[in-house]
């Protein structure tokens, strides 16, 4: 296996959890809700995903456990922000703190345990193809699902009526309410979807990336996912580009450090963040103001008058 091929494969692996969590958050924010609890939902997904897999021996059940954990935590957020009209920023931050603590508790018994990592696809001829074989036809299920998810979200948002309604709710919840759309119900579904995606993104880490669980193993990926959503101007295509760019620079700087370049390692570690921010800012500037605006109702609490 050539170096480039190895790099690309590791880039995809590094990008996938970000892509999953950020895609979910994109849908949430498009509906006008700002859920800053992504990090908490991811780490809960990681802990519960690992637990599910360790107990049953099935990666698939582990992934389902991760999704369920993310959904459950997002339900807490929904109850607070949609049901009780609590400030979304505060509730989201609290959710992260809750998730980090709870995952440590759940995962405590599993630290040091090992599972079989998620199986990779194997197609007799195709996977054996030089260079592209392993990249295109030798990934695990998470990777294929994340790509399908982003395409599916794009199609949903721009090609279906339900997606139009979701965007409308995020643009003006008062108008949507005046036209008779159930704003809170739509937002609840979006929040649950986002929670499930974040949980799955978190579950990817112990189920496929490293075959064991350590507390705090998401290491700020939830925050990166949030930033990606903003810098991608809430557009699925740019979101995917941003996620893979971030993964690429993360891997590249590791290789660069291994080569022993005379750059402080701290600076190299910061590089993915800098590069992603700079590139996405440049993209959104180049596209002009049109179409790069945030959902107008983002983060604003809605209480219907009846």
């Amino acid at each position, binding site marked *: 296996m050539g170096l480039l091929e190895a790099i690309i494969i590791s880039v995809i692996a590094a990008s996938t959890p970000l892509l999953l969590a950020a895609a979910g958050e994109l849908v949430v924010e498009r509906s006008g809700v700002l859920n800053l609890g992504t990090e908490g939902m991811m780490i809960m997904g990681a802990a519960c995903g690992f637990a599910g897999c360790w107990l049953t021996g099935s990666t698939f059940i582990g992934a389902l456990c991760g999704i369920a954990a993310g959904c459950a935590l997002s339900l807490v957020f929904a109850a607070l922000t949609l049901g009780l009209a609590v400030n979304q920023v505060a509730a989201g931050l609290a959710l992260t703190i809750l998730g980090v603590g709870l995952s440590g508790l759940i995962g405590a018994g599993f630290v040091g345990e090992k599972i079989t990592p998620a199986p990779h696809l194997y197609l007799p001829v195709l996977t054996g193809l030089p260079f592209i074989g392993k990249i295109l036809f030798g990934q695990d299920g998470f990777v294929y699902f994340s790509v399908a998810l982003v395409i599916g979200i794009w199609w949903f948002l721009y090609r279906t*009526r339900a997606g*139009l*309604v979701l*965007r*409308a709710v995020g*643009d*003006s919840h*008062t*108008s*949507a*309410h*005046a*036209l*008779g*759309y159930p704003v809170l119900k739509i937002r609840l579904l979006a929040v649950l979807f986002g929670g499930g995606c974040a949980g799955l993104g978190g579950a990817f880490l112990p189920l496929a990336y490293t075959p064991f669980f350590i507390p705090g193993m998401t290491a700020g990926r939830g925050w990166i996912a949030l930033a990606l959503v903003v810098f991608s101007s809430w557009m699925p295509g740019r979101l995917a580009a941003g996620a893979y760019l971030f993964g690429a620079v993360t891997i590249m700087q590791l290789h660069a450090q291994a080569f022993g370049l005379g750059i402080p390692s701290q600076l190299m570690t910061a590089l993915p963040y800098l590069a992603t921010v700079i590139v996405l800012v440049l993209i959104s500037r180049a596209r002009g*103001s*049109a179409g790069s*605006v945030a*959902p*107008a109702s983002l983060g604003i609490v809605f209480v219907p*008058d*009846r």
Partner: protein
Amino acid sequence: MVNAVPVSEPSARAPLLQAIAMTKRYGTFAANDSIDLDLYAGEIHALLGENGAGKSTLVKTMYGLIQPTSGELRWMGEKLELTGPSDARSQGIAMVFQHFSLFDNLTVAENVALGLDGVESFAAMSARLAQVSRDYGLPLDPNREVWRLSVGERQRIEIVRALMQNPKLLILDEPTAVLTPQEADQLFTVLFRLKSEGRALLYISHKLDEVKRLCDTATILRGGKKISTCDPRKETAASLARMMVGAEIGEVKATGARATTIPRLLIQDLSLTPDDPHGVHLKNISIEVKGGEILGIAGVAGNGQDELFAALSGERLAPREGNIVIDSNAAGGLSVTARRKLGAAFVPEERLGHGTAPRMKLSENALLTGHAASHMVKHGFVDKPKTLETVDKTTKTFDVRKAKRDPEAVSLSGGNLQKFIVGREILREPGVLVVSQPTWGVDAGAAAVIRQALLDLSSRGSAVLVISQDLDELAEIADRIAVMFHGHLSPPVAAHEATREKLGLLMGGASAEADAREASHAIGA
């Protein structure tokens, strides 16, 4: 101006929609208190009332947005239960909202699709949209995003969206509040056509001359109760106003000699790029306001008035010091506070959030604009008694009605808060006052108090600049009127020469040279 429309005889026919004893309570407060209303096909029915009289609550109930506490709706004689707007739409009830129910970042076609119940394909809907908008002479480009459109065009979307439901009853909540006179005339043509097609229209408005011209029947609400149902064409504007307010409204009069001498506020060749991508560029604006004069700036909202206000108040700095001159001091680069120290005062359009901090007490809000040029701060400490004194003085002079001595700003009604904000600035005796939409959404009584205060201030020698969409208001108080359009400011015309037609054309973008010709043409047509 009564149009020749055959007088219908409602009593001979059965009503299309009957509202019987509609009541809506929020806690102990009755927004609607046992209101009866009959609407007939082929009739335009006006719903009149002050702010808070319960008009919007009533029509929202009829559209299924609000569930009534008690009372009954009958639709063509049968009991009608509405659980939501889609129920109302399926019966043939459509509504055009006062604050448009549009989505700025979506296209016209998407906005229309969201107002329908989605049984037809998007392509079929787009085709029908083009058809309906052509039929009624309401041209729209389906693929443009709403934020790119003018207010008049936005309203067209609302109306076309309602018409695409082929409604039997169309409810319009203050549709002309934001239109130029010409745009309003175009709207009336459409409304008359809808009426002749046998549809019922329920028309909410503040503008009594419009109601007299357009409507067959009028129902007047006051304090959530129905006061009367009458034929508006047989009433005078004054008698209608009396029923709405429940008292005579004092006439606003200028007092004292109005010396127009030295320019106290000078804007010189001001051009400014907006911060906001959806904002308006100001282009070479030059005008002067003399002491003892009120200058009115008319124009449809969103033509640069907000940007001009921000540049005058110092929320945005002008590119050059000399762009703005306050009492012979170049002020273009000065902060808001520095401009206040020069004797200027500013009243923004938005009462809550811009004019006041909603959750802060009135005394604190008084301090926020008054700290620079008054005695409310001593050695860096707030003099609380002095701030309360300011509140008391404003309350007394401007008849601000409130529940306690120093409540939070948000607890005041719109009219009372506006009286407080305008009063707070006027009591400082500013040499220059810039005020935006001084009586927007304020009831007639409070509006008269505010206008009188502005006139009195100018007669004491101050320069007053009033930005307003309300042409009647400007005609009442302004000495000269200029019009903003797409960031340009027209040369001012003397108020007595400024006819509605002339201003309306300027508001729609006609150049000053062409306006006389076009005005005569418009009247002839």
